[in-house]
């Protein structure tokens, strides 16, 4: 069963002469344990691809299935459930809650998925150890560096054992060395946990770490290379 299967997706904004095609008949399959990088200029449709794959938008046509669940026409609350149960998001500029410590970011995400208790707390500590933040688990985002924040974001995305990891420009705020470390971490986790990962990025210097690279232009997948 594929982590993500997109078939012939079409999505556009506006209408008539103003219509902008965001996804122009895009098909894509991601298998467990595979990290696919998606590159392309701004407006090429990368974010729309993430939005549809992340159950944040429904496509105008085509089908979306995550871990075997067809969510093409899911209602908003069903989409939310798919996100809690199957998807881990790593956002651009990490997108952490200002008021929560690193550890609490993970515990909150688990609570959203209905998981509480000592086991979850232990899992959070374990994940923070895996991303190398054991000694900073009590710090809030304001007290963490950009790279550390991104590590917390990755740990948070993994806490609910997702089948699909969607990563949006994770290195945009980092220098080259840190950027590679972050993507290496993502690659490790993708392989060791058997997660399907979509990595949207501008940063061509890290593409060698991906299992596959796809280039998008004008809403189409233009090239796919292994």
């Amino acid at each position, binding site marked *: 069963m594929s982590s993500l299967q997109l078939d012939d997706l079409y999505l556009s904004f506006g209408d008539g002469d103003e219509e902008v095609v965001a996804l122009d008949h895009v098909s894509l399959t991601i298998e467990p344990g595979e990290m696919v990088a998606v590159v392309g200029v*701004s407006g090429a449709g*990368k*974010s*729309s691809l*993430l*939005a549809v794959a*992340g159950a*944040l*938008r429904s496509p105008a046509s085509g089908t979306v299935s995550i871990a075997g669940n067809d969510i093409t026409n899911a209602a*908003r*609350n069903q989409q*939310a*459930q*798919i*996100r*809690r*149960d199957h*998807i881990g*998001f790593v*956002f*651009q*500029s990490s*997108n952490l*809650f*200002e*008021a*929560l410590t690193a550890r*609490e970011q993970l*515990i*909150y*995400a688990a*609570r*959203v*998925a209905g998981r509480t208790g000592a086991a979850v707390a232990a899992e959070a500590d374990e994940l923070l150890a895996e991303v190398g933040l054991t000694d900073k688990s009590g710090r*809030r985002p304001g007290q963490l560096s950009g790279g550390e924040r991104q590590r917390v974001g990755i740990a948070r995305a993994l806490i609910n054992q997702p089948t699909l990891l969607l990563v*949006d*420009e994770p290195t*945009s705020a980092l220098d080259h060395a840190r950027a590679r470390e972050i993507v290496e971490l993502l690659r490790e986790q993708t392989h060791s946990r058997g997660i399907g990962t979509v990595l949207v990025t501008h940063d061509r210097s890290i593409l060698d770490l991906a299992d596959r690279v796809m280039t998008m232009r004008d809403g189409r997948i233009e090239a796919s290379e292994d």
Partner: protein
Amino acid sequence: MYLALRELKYAWGRFALVGSVIGLVAILTVMLSGLASGLVDDGISGLRALPVTNLAFSPNSHSTFTRSTVDSDTVSAFADIAGVQAEPLGVGIFNAKLTDGTPTEMTLFGVEPGGYLAGSITNGGQLAFESDGVVISQGLADSGVDVGDHIVLDRSGLDMAVTAVASEATYGHVAVVYAPIDLWRQATYGSSPNSSGLASAVAINAPGGTDLAAPATRANVDVVTKNEAYSGSPGYAAETSTMTLIRGFLYVIAAMILGAFFTVWTIQRRQEIGLQKALGASTRSVLIGSLGQVLLVLIAATTVGALIGYALGLVVAGGDVPFSLQPGPVLAASATLVLTGMAGVLVGVRRITRVDPIIALGGAE
């Protein structure tokens, strides 16, 4: 609430700011509530203490004793109904001088000696009226009038001996003095022979469900309930409506402050609200967290404010200001403040439900 509680702790300064404003409003609300009850007591406690259910006034007198005159036939029209007690009641405000020459004023309540009203005033017959004696209320006793003193009414020169002291009672902000109805008639109408049997109103004590409308029509009087009759007390309607208006404004102000705070706070957190939803939190749980957060601040601020207001009230209550603090009205005012505050917050709710989780993705526009 996991995130909401941690936000409360983290951004406590902002919540403390809005909380202190709500606390101040709560103090004001409690103080006003005490002042309003105090004014009401000062206006009608003498009437409220009488064991009557209804009062009959002459037509179009708008429950004002000094505009109304009834005669003995009117009293009989009600007293003749089985199970109903009805007696003449005279009410008038008089200037007088105390024994030592101090000018004073009083509301003279004229009641039938030996009747059910007199029984209630004189504490079950222990304090009996004597022929020309009057019973003063506690307020006059506190200002130095003793049993055995004489009160002389201005103009008529009627001399009344104080024979007993009853509990605190005022009407129209003036201390009540109870007199036998004949003495009241003398004070009010002089020695005119036509005044026999006259009174201001009929004090009726009728069991619930008694038909008072038919006898009222026959006797050509307006029958009102005791509560309705309060509005005839001098200044009562104006005082209560002013207090109600001020309190109403306070509630509206509290609602608007909270509404504005919540709206700004929600706008500031828009990104994080989108993030919560993107992580899969339902709109319902996001709403519960956000509203619960404000509700906690509102309840805490109202409680602290009400307690401070209550403490201040206890200081004020001893003085000359008519002030009466009862737990009931204080609780009611606090509850109303919380409810109207939350109503104000509800205007911001759409800002939360409308947030699209897609904003969590940076370049998703």
